[in-house]
């Protein structure tokens, strides 16, 4: 017992190497991306403090709710949850991918689901107009027609930045004219209806862009995985018909370990982007990489070489 103080002394001394080890561990945690950042908003800090040991679990439980809302069609309610799950587990790629999909595809569709109903009602209304009404409300009719055209073009022509600029400027033009009409003693309800219709393409553009943004944010947290590059590339390709961007992101995707279909989509994207030679080279590469794609690839190459176009 005489040397008991040695025990205490050694114990306290050991805190020194412990400290150095901790510093090294902290560094490793940063390096290997095991660290999660701290949000200083008091509410969020408190929340994160409480959850710290069970982040994964919390994320999963929130995810269940996301699924719930999706299946019951309450798309808007999914959004704050998606943000929360993404914040809790930013390296969980699925969240970003699904979130982006919900925004750019599902909500995109949902904001326009009343469009046909409203425009039909408007059509019906027109049948009750007098000649004077028809003259007064001509701008409304034009606006509605233009709106429909824009909606079609959004879906058929795409949503590149240039196209979107065009759509928006056309919408603004009509909005200005309608505003002018409103000042005169016009039927408020009618004007409101048309205004609502004009909002739809805006909303669609908004949600498409939100989806793209969300995916981009996800990429910043997961820059070494192919998944979100592919999701974004696919969104640009399929939804946005924005081929330059599609190619850009798909090319990034193939830089990381990835499944074969990524190369397949890239080949199609090259073609749509006008880079026929690249497309052919990509198909040829795909044959070497994945023999199961041989027949498709050969047909694509043949069509590209003879017709200059293969993808329908």
């Amino acid at each position, binding site marked *: 017992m005489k040397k*008991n103080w040695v025990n205490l002394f050694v114990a306290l001394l050991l805190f020194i190497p412990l400290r150095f080890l901790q510093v090294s561990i902290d560094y490793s945690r940063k390096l290997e991306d*095991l660290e999660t950042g701290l949000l200083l908003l008091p509410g969020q800090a408190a929340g994160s403090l409480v959850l710290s*040991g069970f982040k*994964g679990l919390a994320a*999963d439980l929130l*995810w269940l709710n996301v699924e719930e809302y999706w299946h019951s069609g309450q798309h808007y309610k999914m959004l704050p949850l998606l943000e929360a799950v993404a914040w809790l587990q930013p390296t969980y*790629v699925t969240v970003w991918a699904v979130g982006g999909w919900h925004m750019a595809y599902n909500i995109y569709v949902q904001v326009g689901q009343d469009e046909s109903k409203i425009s039909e009602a408007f059509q019906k209304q027109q049948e009750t107009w007098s000649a004077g009404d028809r003259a007064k409300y001509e701008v409304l009719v034009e606006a509605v027609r233009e709106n429909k055209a824009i909606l079609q073009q959004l879906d058929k022509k795409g949503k590149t930045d240039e196209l979107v600029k065009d759509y928006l400027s056309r919408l603004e033009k009509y909005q200005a004219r309608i505003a002018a009409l409103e000042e005169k003693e016009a039927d408020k309800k009618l004007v409101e209806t048309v205004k609502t219709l004009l909002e739809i393409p805006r909303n669609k553009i908004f949600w498409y862009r939100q989806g793209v943004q969300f995916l981009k944010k996800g990429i910043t947290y997961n820059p070494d995985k192919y998944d979100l590059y592919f999701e974004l590339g696919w969104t640009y390709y399929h939804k946005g018909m924005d081929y330059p961007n599609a190619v850009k992101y798909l090319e990034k995707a193939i830089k990381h370990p990835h499944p074969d279909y990524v190369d397949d989509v890239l080949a199609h994207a090259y073609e749509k982007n006008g880079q026929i030679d690249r497309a052919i080279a990509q198909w040829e590469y795909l044959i070497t990489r994945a023999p199961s794609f041989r027949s498709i690839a050969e047909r694509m190459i043949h069509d590209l070489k003879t017709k200059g176009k293969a993808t329908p």
Partner: protein
Amino acid sequence: MKKIWVIAQNTFHESLRKRTLYIVLVFGLVVIGASKFFSFLTAQEELKMIQDVSFSAIEFFGALIAIFGALGAISSEIEKRTIYTLLSKPITRYHFVIGKFVGQILILLVNFLLLCLFFVGLLLFKKSVPNIEIFKALFLIFVELLLISSITLALATFTSDAFNIIFSFFLYIVGHLTSYGRQLIERTENIILKGLGDMLYTIVPNYENFAIRDKVVVGVPVSWQYVGKTVSYGLIYIVIAILIGIYCFQKREV
């Protein structure tokens, strides 16, 4: 050395009669089992769910077993007066403390393996072969549990059970938050606060070091180097705790 083992065996044997440990173990198994019922998710999500739930359950219930196991180890001997007989035997007090700790290791090992086997069994049942990363994560959790146990044991050498249980839980929670604390402290300008924070950060056991499951669950590998560092941290801290326990117990009058 043999005497340490004899005491350890006795401690383990005694734990088999502690009902609390069984309850905790069963709870742990139930929770892991419950994760199976999320089959309405996609296969990949379900797997992640099972892993998240199981890791959390193993860590949490494991911590409970570590704390409850170590809690009674010394106080039960004192309450039952068996300690007088024991100390009259040709053993030193450090034999006693280390023997108790080795007993804790046995207790944790058995319970931990049961929980893990159940977890791995569930994974295999879902046709997912657990990779080495999962075992790394489990191994780190085990070292963490040993650490929790050693600290509770050290506390038991000089505090009452009531204080110990509250403080051990408190330390468990705080130990998970130290890295957040550190980030906060980094942003202050106040030197005194910084120094104090620094000291606290070193002293409080950093249980977050052992938490690699976030990465493992999304399939990202963690380096062996990191595992090595963290295990070393755990071992050093365990030694510190045991030494302090020995120191306090050698001064203790019963």
